[in-house]
């Protein structure tokens, strides 16, 4: 109990492995795999842009930067809400924890809605994967991320349902930390995606 009050994770007695961040070790292995996949995607985008800088710079102003920025804020807010939810449960403030989770899910839902409108505008303009290299990357990279937001939402909703049922406590909220870690990963990736695809020129 003292550990959570001072903000430190309980020290594992099995010191054979380096102390991993809060959440199941399995989710952290999965997060590393996800970061690797996104990392490769970002690197390929960067190298393709290097070879076609004129095309990328000509196409990029057509993107909806306002939608991109709003979505950045929604993901940051969702991440913040989840962090506050975990902090609340660590203090056994269960109703607050459930409310923060609900707010995080709302932020994720907002992201999806904004993105759907963004895609709809692009498709209405006749843009698709075959339009050119820039749009191929814009659509595939953001849609790859979009699917991760959906998975993150599914995880958060499952955690929210269990939290509402009183399934977490200050002493035991590993499951919530596990879901939170995945959600933060989705945010972390977008923090690179937004400047890279929407702003850098």
């Amino acid at each position: 109990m003292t550990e959570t009050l001072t903000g430190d994770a309980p020290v594992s007695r099995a010191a054979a492995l380096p102390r991993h961040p809060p959440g199941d070790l399995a989710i952290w292995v999965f997060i590393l795999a996800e970061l690797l996949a996104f990392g490769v995607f970002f690197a390929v985008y960067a190298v393709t842009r290097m070879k076609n800088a004129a095309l990328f710079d000509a196409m990029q102003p057509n993107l909806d930067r306002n939608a991109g920025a709003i979505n950045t804020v929604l993901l940051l807010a969702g991440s913040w809400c989840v962090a506050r939810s975990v902090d609340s449960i660590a203090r056994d403030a269960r109703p607050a924890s459930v409310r923060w989770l609900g707010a995080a899910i709302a932020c994720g839902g907002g992201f999806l809605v904004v993105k759907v409108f963004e895609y709809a505008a692009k498709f209405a303009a006749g843009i698709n994967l075959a339009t050119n290299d820039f749009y191929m990357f814009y659509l595939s990279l953001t849609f790859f991320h979009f699917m991760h937001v959906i998975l993150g939402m599914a995880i958060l909703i499952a955690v929210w349902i269990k939290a509402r049922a009183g399934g977490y406590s200050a002493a035991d909220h590993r499951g919530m930390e596990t879901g939170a870690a995945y959600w933060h990963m989705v945010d972390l990736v977008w923090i690179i995606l937004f400047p890279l695809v929407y702003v850098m020129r």
Partner: protein
Amino acid sequence: MNVTPTRGIARRLDLVFAFLVAATGVTWLVGETGSAGPAAVALILGLALVKGWLVIREFMLLRRASLLWNLVVAGWLVLILATIALTYWKALR
């Protein structure tokens, strides 16, 4: 029950979030003004580095994990941003 330390964590999370939103505003402004070139790109990639670092340390709570975990995740962030910066720079020449 002494809850002061954890309330401190909540305030810390709020401050991190406020900074993240402010930094996003700067990146948005760079885009809106159509700023191009190495200085603008250094600024937005630098902000992405700081934002990513804060999310890793404060939200994902890597600050409670071992040095090795911090090196791996922060190393990913630095490697990706360095790759982006390098390819941008090479495209200028």
